[in-house]
């Protein structure tokens, strides 16, 4: 029983390669079925996100030779030349494969350290593969372990708690003021890349209403369709600012778009309910003195970038704690795996010894002719008893002594020693 992993990620492969080897849900199912029908893997799970495509598997018979087979399968499946793919692929076995997966689900292997999405993607990939029966006892246990690592790292360390992008920092700040966003509305001025990210994050957080304002009506309509918001005519501040709680602004303009006076009037119209302004424009879109107004919280792109910078340091300092959790679970998984393998070994040994005993008696049948049937059965029974007795003590110790299981590093060697089918040299 061995675990093999072949894959590539954002560090080993450029996006042009990654997009060619990514799997849709349907493709991952097809790949798993093919891998099994060709006898390359007995258990399979495909994990494919925008940053990685990885195949985890348990080969039917242990051999270190299944990684090349998997690599060529990948290149064939996606019709990518093997030499192109070869430089990007990594493969890991057993301990390293387990460790890799656990680090992935902890967010330690992500492009954005500690990001939360990956845990959901791992869960989804596992759920799907489990559903169509591609996984087995080993991968089930492995992925349940991975989900546990992901959850623990997120609840016990700060790896995933702090916002790491300008957009998420802005949205999290808004949450510091308003709490849940599901009864709030946001006004989007203009549409830069970052403000689009902010809108996506706001929608993820269940923002109730989006208002779109743009100088070009046509562009505003287009954005409204894309974001699912309502268009407000350019300059209708009174309407727009009366209901919006968050303003996301990224307008290309030399002059500030939102003046302090306009905001002062808006604040009195909205009964001084708090207003959070995210000024992502360069030059700035909102007059700086507006920050002084009562119950207005204003952050520009530099403020947000600085927060992200601070958080990056905070997150990086959490990495050792996350790695400790990963190591702990790798150890746990390996000792589970070893105990399963050892129990399997003892069972196999029992079967083998019975066979040997039968062969032994058959071979000496002639010399035992003087024995009656009853006597022969009695002797067979005694031999079986002896075999059981010899096996019982080690089997019980293996079940009961964790330390002993840990000490037996190489189950394969034991299997080779006792159960080898090789002819004697």
């Amino acid at each position: 029983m061995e675990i093999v992993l072949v894959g590539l990620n954002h560090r080993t492969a450029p996006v042009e390669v990654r997009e060619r080897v990514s799997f849709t849900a349907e493709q991952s199912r097809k790949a798993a079925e093919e891998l099994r029908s060709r006898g390359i893997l007995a258990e399979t799970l495909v994990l494919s996100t925008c940053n990685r495509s990885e195949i985890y598997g348990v080969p039917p018979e242990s051999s270190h030779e299944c990684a090349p087979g998997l690599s060529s399968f990948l290149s064939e499946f996606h019709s990518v030349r093997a030499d192109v793919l070869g430089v990007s692929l990594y493969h890991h076995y057993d301990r390293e494969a387990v460790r890799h997966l656990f680090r992935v689900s902890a967010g330690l292997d992500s492009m954005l350290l500690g990001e939360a999405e990956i845990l959901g993607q791992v869960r989804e990939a596992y759920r799907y593969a489990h559903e169509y029966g591609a996984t087995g006892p080993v991968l089930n246990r492995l992925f349940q372990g991975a989900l546990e690592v992901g959850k623990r790292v997120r609840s016990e360390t700060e790896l995933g708690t702090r916002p790491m992008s300008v957009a998420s920092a802005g949205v999290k700040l808004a949450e510091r003021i308003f709490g849940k966003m599901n009864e709030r509305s946001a006004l989007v001025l203009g549409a830069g890349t970052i403000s689009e990210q902010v809108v996506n994050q706001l929608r993820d957080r269940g923002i109730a209403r989006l208002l779109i304002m743009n100088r070009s009506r046509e562009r505003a309509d287009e954005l409204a369709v894309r974001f699912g918001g309502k268009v407000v005519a350019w300059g209708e501040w009174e309407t727009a600012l009366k209901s919006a709680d968050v303003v996301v602004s990224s307008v290309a303009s030399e002059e500030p778009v939102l003046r302090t006076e306009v905001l002062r009037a808006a604040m009195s119209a909205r009964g001084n309910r708090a207003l959070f302004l995210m000024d992502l424009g360069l030059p700035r879109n909102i007059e700086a003195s507006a920050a002084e107004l009562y119950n207005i919280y204003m952050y520009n792109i530099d403020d947000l970038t600085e927060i992200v910078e601070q958080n990056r340091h905070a997150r990086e300092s959490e990495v050792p704690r996350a790695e400790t959790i990963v190591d702990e679970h790798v150890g746990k998984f390996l000792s589970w795996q070893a105990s399963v393998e050892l129990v399997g070994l003892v069972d196999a040994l029992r079967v083998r010894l019975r066979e040997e005993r039968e062969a032994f008696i058959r071979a000496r049948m002639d010399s035992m002719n003087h024995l009656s049937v009853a006597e022969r059965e009695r002797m067979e029974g005694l031999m079986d008893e002896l075999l059981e007795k010899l096996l019982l003590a080690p089997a019980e110790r293996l079940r009961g002594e964790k330390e002993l299981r840990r000490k037996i590093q190489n189950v394969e060697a034991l299997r080779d020693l006792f159960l080898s089918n090789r002819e004697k040299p």
Partner: protein
Amino acid sequence: MVSMGSAEFMKELFFLLTIVAYAGSFALYLRFLGTGKEIAGRLGTIFLGLGLIAHYFALLERSRGLHTVPYHDLYGSMSLFGWLLALTYLGLELYHRQRSVGAFVLPFIIVFFVAAHLAPGDRLSPVPARGVVFAFHVTLSILAYAAFALSFVFSLIFLAEERLLKSRRLGDVVWRLPALELLERMSRSSVLIGLVAIAIGTVLGFVWVDRLHGQIWYYDPKYVITLLVLLLYVLYFQLARTASWRGARASRLCIFNFFVVVMSFTVVNLYLSQSHRYF
């Protein structure tokens, strides 16, 4: 003698259990605030619950033989205040599902509990104060003060967080404090508890005075300050939702109000009021 000794022993035991539970809860809430570990916060809540139970028995031991709440001395009123503070906080924490302010509330609970224990025994003869009505009058009044103290703490946190957010200088802790809006709501709900409790408590006080003296009105400066406290908190409750007071200004008012409560608790009780010594 033996029974006296065992009573003393029980008192000490419950004191120790309470202090250990509260201190544990404080440490865990601090850890939760510092690291964001969910488990620490949950354990903090559990320890607070255990502290409440132990504290209850500590109060019970103290009031043994009294057959009512221990209000007749400084120990009683301070300890009961601490207990009701803890109870109200726990209720609000569970209601609002927000435990990052626990680290700020627990020190108050601990200070009152320990101060009560250290307070000298009262040598004055207790007021002729017995009966269910009187017990409720005392308990509800102290509950009101505890709830006002909580809103004071919430308002302080609100002001500090508001200042950090406004000035764009975010420390580590800002990410774990409750949202401003939630702090406002928590403060308002604790003021509401306080208002209801003080209103009922005061009415019961008058009922009791009526029974005792056969007349409702006899002058006590405590009436004036209690009315003032009541009005100030009603004002806060109303203003906190109006345009010009919403936010930091309302929180400042709430903090000011609590100073009036403290005045009522100290100056008025000690120097002015005849019948209100400890609450």
